[in-house]
């Protein structure tokens, strides 16, 4: 049984945009909304050099990092080829217009300090 945390309403996130969820003592989580109202959540940190993905341009089901333009897949957190790397994804539930995140994941995932995966 998943313990869900209510985050926001769908309309709080702009279409083809993102908002960030602040976690005290840990890195933010970015929630994204696609053109067709799908919602995804990723750690707000590009696997390349830690750029805030919530500030990027959303297109299709990817987001372009604002720092160096890596494209990260919203569904899996993987960098699109030829870049390689992965950022933590979070489970999202969209119920009506209410967006939920998994409380357990928010508590446990990606709490350690950032280490760049780039060489």
């Amino acid at each position, binding site marked *: 049984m998943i313990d869900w945390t209510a985050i926001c309403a769908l309309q709080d996130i702009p*279409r083809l945009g993102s908002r960030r*969820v602040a976690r*005290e*003592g840990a890195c933010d989580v970015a*929630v994204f909304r696609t053109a067709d109202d799908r919602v995804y959540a990723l750690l707000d940190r590009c696997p390349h050099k*830690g750029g805030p993905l919530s500030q990027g341009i959303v297109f299709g089901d990817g987001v372009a990092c604002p720092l160096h333009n890596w494209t990260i897949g919203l569904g899996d957190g993987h960098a699109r080829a030829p870049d390689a790397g992965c950022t933590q994804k979070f489970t999202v539930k969209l119920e009506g217009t209410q967006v939920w995140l998994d409380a357990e994941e928010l508590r446990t995932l990606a709490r350690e300090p950032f280490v760049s995966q780039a060489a």
Partner: protein
Amino acid sequence: MDTKTIPVPGIDATASPRLKLVVIGNGMAGIRAVEELLTLAPDLYDITVFGAEPHPNYNRILLSPVLSGEQTIEQIILNPLSWYEDHGIRLHLGRTVVDVNRRQRVVIADDGTREPYDRLLIATGSNPFILPVPGKELQGVITYRDIHDTNAMIDAATRYRHAVVIGGGLLGLEAANGLAVRGMQVTVVHIAPWLMERQLDVTAGTLLQHSLEARGLKFLIGAQTEALLPAVGVDGVASSRVGSVRFKDGSLIPADLVVMAAGIRPNTLLAEKIGLYCSRGIVVNDTLQTITDPRIYSVGECAAHRGIAYGLVAPLFEQGKVCATHLAQFGIGRYLGSQTSTKLKVTGIDLFSAGNFTGGPDCEEIVMSDPCGGVYKKLVIKDDRLVGACVYGDTVDGSWYFKLVRDGRKIGDIRDKLMFGESNIGDVGHQGHSKAAAMLDSDEVCGCNGVTKGAICKAIKEKGLFTLDEVRKQTKASASCGSCTGLVEQLLMFTAGGDYSAAPKRKAMCGCTEHGHQAVRDAIVEQHLLTVDEVYRTLDWRTPNGCASCRPAVNYYLISSWPKEAMDDPQSRYINERSHANIQKDGTYSVIPRMWGGETTSSELRRIADAVDKFKIPTVKVTGGQRIDLLGVKKEDLPAVWKEIGMPSGHAYAKALRTVKTCVGSEWCRFGTQDSTQMGKDLERAMWRMYAPHKVKFAVSGCPRNCAEAGIKDVGIIGVDSGWEMYVAGNGGIKTEVAHFFVKLKTADEVLEYTGAFCQLYREEGWYLERTVHYVNRVGLDHVKRKILDDAEGRKALWARLQFSLDGEPDPWFDFEKAQVDLRQFQPVAMLTTRETA
């Protein structure tokens, strides 16, 4: 010939609901199309490939280095057998397709194999032309086309002495050089009056002949081969192997090996047999479908597109890409033909040609010739554009000339330096490198991403890269500021062979569309398009909402073409223009308030100082444009910092008018002739909030000492005793470019009008992310002068249109609603406490 088929586990063709694609031809063109298709629609087709050769797809361009012993066959394999297995491709090697039943849609091979198809791709390439002379069927008479021929030549070189190559074109000379390197005595027989007559003019051809002669090759120019005669043994009996070549004039030379390299012909045997219309190749339309049967496609050397069968790799790849999008049922993308260039792959001999290098009526030529030094350059110019180049001996600038030919850029401004190459117009890579060949493997080519020459060459070789885009994607070299593009192109040319460089005539905006910047802008203007979605729908975009590269561009074209009508779309803007501050590497922002003309007051400075203290802003810095930069501001604090400071937005984060830099001017300076500070303030107040294709910077100096450095700004104004001099399209960035003198003006009002008109012209005609220097280079300074200096009404209209656009534009730091600044972005959408998250 051994044949084998790789079984594909788990795929039963009879039970599969997928469409069936059969590819005839396992060469570079056909397989490239398959690769493109697999990335677009990996599961759409069951794919079957027939290859007449017993090898997987290899890089045919690199047969010459294999022949000369510089590379091995293993090194030139592009797709190993495992690649076919991994992608579930049924591969029939060593089987020639002999028939196609178009009604039943079945392909039939020479061993009786039958494969049904829904779509058929014919990529049978070309055949060497065999001279119709007696003796052509003797042993030891071969062509130079594939691995089999190459091996035959390598083998012959170990056992025989005399080789004759018929044909002094690209292929023939590479064969002759390879055989000579392997120790044979080689004579090249060439019927035309000079070598490589289709790629070189007579001077360069003669220079080439001399340097090849110095390497021990012999030439018979103008000789006509009459017959190939068998060798005669000591017993006087004719053997089955060739022994000599006889010419029309009766002369005879010994020949243990004869290589026919007198040109290629598209291989249309099968296509003609099955009734496809052929005329110098299988005739295809812009989507690479045969005009006879829309289920059948053709790409590569066998295909004739708009009357041309291309023999170079880059056009074939371009065709493959278009063909793949069509096969993937996207129904978009058209192939419009390619420009090509040539480079001989003979180590130590540098020659390059592109475009129309022979000239003709209406063409001018610039020629430099130093026969003793072995250097020859000919540039052909038509209508102020470079249309062709033929370069021998010093080809470092080949790729640059080719780029100029392709881009069709006006060359009036660099004409006097054109001959001396790219390095002479200040257009060089980092540390002043201009010759990629002379660099060490450890030398850095791309200063932005720290990519060395060695890393680029390795990627080109190992990953089989052929285009600049591929190198950018794989290595990041030249992917940021682009100043090393010329170097990377040189490396491509040296490493991948000269065939790499042909490129589409018109460059698409990005991978989402086939349209270039101009076409998109024209459509927006002509069809009165007002939203990004409308543009994407009207122009058949391949992606539902574009990408991070095209969306900001389209958004800019909309708001600049239809001011007060098209709605700005914040989600199509880069973060800096959405949050109206400049994002820094740690995710914080910088704030640069506007200071008109670089002048400030004590109360402004006090407010800035207070804001720095209040919001604990870590760094305060004076910028190059005479403004104050507050660095390290948290996003949450931005609106409050703006309010605290109470100064207008400096737009230092935007593709817009940034700063007007001024010197002190006549108010204080003992040398000043004009009030440059006031002029700067007036310019800045008239044009601030002006979005543009890229950032725009002005400077105003009060006398010719030019303390405001107006010579490297988009618009530079220099006061002189009798008025103002106006300079345009300078740039102090990646490559320093000195601004062009534009016009001398008398009054400050004129300065405003002319500057405004120039900016508006750039806003209307510049492509997104094109600085004024690149815009003016592209359209030519003459064009800008015609529009602004020669056409008073046009100039006034431009200035009026700019004023109309700017009238009532909001300051995004204060008028949030009108500027569509979504204030929600500055706060987290939810705050989770430690209790909730730990």
